[in-house]
């Protein structure tokens, strides 16, 4: 790799934290400021077969980043993600369910994320 502007950090983020309700925690804004890329986890209100297909894509893409040593993290709780990752032989990255912007910043900066 010759290099470009990428940060080599990718967060898997729940839809609720990426599209927060008014007044909710906007994880996308924090991740943007902290130079992380984002993979959105499928919204739970989609039909089950859509969630399953999109989750499989998330796992495939995560496997590619993991294989090349990118730093990975899961932001929020998501049922079924660990199983999807396991099907692609990806160990679950550090996971954090932030209660505040400061919480999330701390998680991202400590090296746990």
């Amino acid at each position, binding site marked *: 790799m010759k290099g*470009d502007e990428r940060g080599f950090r990718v967060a898997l983020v729940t839809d609720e934290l990426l599209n927060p309700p008014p007044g909710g925690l906007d994880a996308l804004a924090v991740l943007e400021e902290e130079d*992380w*890329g984002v993979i959105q986890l499928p919204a739970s209100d989609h039909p089950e077969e859509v969630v399953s297909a999109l989750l499989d894509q998330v796992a495939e*893409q995560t496997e590619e980043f993991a294989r090349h040593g990118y730093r990975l993290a899961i932001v929020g709780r998501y049922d079924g993600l660990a199983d999807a990752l396991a099907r692609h032989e990806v160990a679950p990255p550090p996971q954090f369910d932030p209660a505040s912007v400061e919480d999330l910043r701390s998680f991202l900066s400590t090296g746990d994320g």
Partner: protein
Amino acid sequence: MAGVAFVAHCLLNQNAKVDGGARTAGVYSPLVEELRAHGWRIEQMPCPELAFTGLHRFWAVKEQLDTTAFRRHCRRIAQAVASAIEAHTERGDDVVLVGLEGSPTMGVCVTSSDGELGGRPAWPEGSSELAPGRGIYIEELAAELAERGLPMPRAMGISHQLPDHDPAAERAALAELLGA
């Protein structure tokens, strides 16, 4: 009416770009700022190239990726995305699509094309592979929607990898797409 923007994967994750293509560390901020400013919900589409050809892929033109296997891969992704678009449409949501101009897969109005490229990678200095047209994934998504009797959403492509990229014009086009 709620607005939902289906956006190319790399616009939220520049780490997915081909080597040399990332313009930011992670998120392409101008797009997110426009969507947030106008109250649009974000739905990230999977990157067809990332899982299929990997992070160490070469830059490629449309003809190099245009195989039955890659189209099948794109169609599988497009079926899931089309179902999500269909669900939003049935709820009465306004749906738009934001791709990436110049991309062999995600181009909306500009893709990359050169029928002569192949073999050992070599790009003659000054050559341009840009060409009018859609990328392969966008073609497959349009076909999938058409088969379901659904219209193609209003769409545009982010142009930050084009040589004549104009950030102000891009922001204005985004605002127009979002109905501002």
